[in-house]
């Protein structure tokens, strides 16, 4: 059998790649499409560093097969900023120093963006539970939670 030919839409643009069945969407993004913004921390859905949107739902790209992306819509960290205009979440992560090593940051931003699209005015508890699948070992989460709350406020125009 030849590799699968996958046609998909990534960050609004058409994209195609070839993959084997066992390659995950994360493998395909990183190795076939050179989109390395999504990170692999565990390959078991436990750390959230590979968070992407698949057909509008937040998922771990390590738990999706690349071939499942055929005909799907995918949004990744690479599509969060518009050109050189950062998303409010990205700005607040910088202003709040919500990253130390930064390897979990892309996953947090993708996941937090999904939250704010669903719930523009989350409580601290809601933010913490929504982001419970995104592990950060550096910050103790404090500044991340603040950055998300501040970005939410800014986006609401508060």
């Amino acid at each position: 059998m030849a590799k699968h030919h996958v046609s998909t839409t990534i960050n609004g643009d058409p994209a195609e790649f070839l993959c084997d069945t066992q390659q995950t969407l994360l493998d395909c993004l990183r190795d076939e499409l050179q989109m390395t913004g999504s990170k692999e921390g565990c390959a078991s859905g436990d750390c959230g560093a590979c968070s992407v949107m698949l057909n509008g739902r937040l998922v771990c790209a390590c738990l999706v097969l690349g071939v499942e992306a055929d005909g799907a819509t995918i949004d990744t960290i690479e599509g969060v900023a518009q050109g050189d205009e950062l998303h409010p979440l990205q700005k607040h992560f910088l202003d709040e120093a919500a990253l130390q090593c930064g390897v979990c940051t892309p996953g947090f931003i993708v996941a937090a963006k999904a939250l704010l699209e669903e719930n523009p005015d989350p409580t601290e508890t809601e933010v913490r539970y929504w982001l419970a699948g995104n592990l950060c070992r550096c910050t103790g989460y404090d500044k991340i939670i603040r950055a998300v709350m501040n970005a939410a406020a800014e986006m609401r125009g508060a």
Partner: protein
Amino acid sequence: MGNEENVGKIIDYSGRQFKQIGTRVVRPDGVEKVTGKANFGADFKANGMIYARTVRSPHAHAKIKKINVDKALKLKGVKAVVTGADFPEIDVNDKAVGEVVVSYYDMAHNTIARDKVYYDGHVVAAVAATSADIAEQAARLIEVEYEVLKPVMTAEAALKKNAPVLHKHLFTQGVEPKPDKPSNLAARSQFKLGDIEAGFGQADVVVERTYTTQTVHQGYIEPHACVASITADGMVNVWCSSQGQFMVRAYVAKICGIEISKVKVTPAEIGGGFGGKTVIYLEPLAVALAKKAGRPVKMVMTRDEVLRATGPTSGGSARVKLGAKRDGTIVAGDMELTYEAGAYPGSPVMLGCMTGFAPYDIKNINAVGWDVVVNRPKAAAYRAPGAPVAAFAVESAVDELAEQLGMDPLELRLKNAAVEGTQAPYGVKFGPIGYKETLEAAKNSPQWKAPLGPNQGRGIASGFWFNIGGTSSAEVMVNEDGTVIVATGNPDIGGSRASMALMAAEVLGIPYERIKPLVADTESVPYSMLTGGSRVTFATGKAVIEAAQDAVNDLRRRAAKIWDVDLEQVEWQDGQAVCIESDKHKPLTIANIAAKADKTGGAISGKANINATGAGPGFGTHICDVEVDPETGHVTVLRYTAIQDVGKAIHPSYVEGQLQGGAVQGIGWALNEEYVYSDDGRLLNTGFLDYRIPVASDLPMIDTVLVEVPNPGHPFGVRGVGETPIVPPLAAVANAVSHAIGKRCADLPLSPVRLLSIIDGK
């Protein structure tokens, strides 16, 4: 400032009002990291690159009888296989002499096993192929014949009379007479102050208890990763994430038997280390495979490999005995620590002995440490190595002592707090330190005064870390337009580029935004010691300050030339050269001077190669409030305050971040993190699902208080801050839980299962 002192001399910053230091600027590498563009260890690719996977031992302790790689080599796409036999043998006594004793023999054997495997996950072979999948399948085709030996999984088992001995060449160090037989007891260390017997003789109240902790992992989110390639003329290039590109270079050269000049290491962004990336694992394998295959080789660990075979830090037991007078004066402290080093000697037990009693002025101290090898992965450094376990025991004992004395635990600490001039347990007298100040801040914190509800408890604990200096280099290069590049040799693990740029900006007097900090490869800056020991902002920062001053002097020389005046007439003020004693010359900005660099002698730069001394010790005090579910043993952390003497916070947000992150790692250590092994020595929790680091919903906000008692050993008063914050939380949490349930919790982690059995009195 007089002219003469200003020439080629260190500028005195004491009492100076800072313009940029202490501001909360956006880190220079921030945009790259929030957009996913920053390149971490696994993000690098080379043309023609192939992929390698390892074969690891499923046994905790076994002899390797035979390795058959034939089937693997026959699989299409397989390019190379290496085993221990492909590496040069290293003398058993070959040790690095430097800041830490490093046994190259052990390191080489830990990288890839030779005749024996010592833990579940020990590498026995590695295979490179044209795809990761083929490499993985090929690894499964490598047949290893083992003679399985009985493992020793705990210090207790390792020290039993007829325990299997791991290493035939291991004779206990530090005991007299020298043993004539090898054993699993690697070393004994001891620190004494005063007369311990006499000390306890003065005591009215004595508390004594044994505390235990389990093996825990640093838990960085980024697995180890590297790419190695070899040029046609034998030059080795390694691209990897680590806590020190020069460390990787030295170790690769040694383990692979290559001259240092032939190895170039380019640092990737590092996705967390906490000490766990101060050693190497994959790089020599990738280099050997690249050499055999003639292609660049990429290796990335899985999380399972990270947990089974890297890190961790020692589990251990700590017996602590404290004696105090009725008025609360602690007169004697006795401590016996036993730490599991893992497969090779070198647990941080000695550092535990040196740090445990350090927050207190105790005249009579005896601290003995035992370093024991067991069939677990070799312990690597983890944030204040050795200190958290000792502090857990001592700070719990202080809490118990306060109960026995009927004293407030904070007041008891204040009464005995180490101050400038106090003799530390390792004998040295402290310079200016801010421990007492952290206790005062704790006393004044809103949390300390807040009421508690039913099933709730509050714990307080303190901690100490030495902080270190060491060799650091920096170059400050002034560009043609007056912007500046600051190159150093230390990976930026938590925002250090921002502090380097801030310190350079302060000295040069130009805006922070005009400075680009660079983490340079091993061929672009002189040697620097690794990022660790809370040393970068202190030591490399000191180098940056000196290099910036050197650049300022160069700029002044150029201005003097432009104006045709003596150097002494040129002062550097707010980023400009100013001609004193004459107002006919308009001040020259750095851009003005840079524009004329070609005419005044070529490129303008400054450099500093230093071995920084004068690292100021760090003390912290943490307060933790918990609520315990008495029916399930589940602990909820309700509130937490971390207070620390940070000397001078260069970038307060990132300093707070260190306190918060360290506190939370410590909370994880206290509550739910532990290695769980089967009886035959296989690690059972090899993923983040069952190795339970704290998640966002487990925690409250972590309040911080930065106490600033300047360190005289740094021009801006900086103390290292990264490690101290993980020292107090184990006891802060355990003391809080103990108060909530009314029973002393002496064994970590306080997982629901363990805690419920304590509550139910079993």
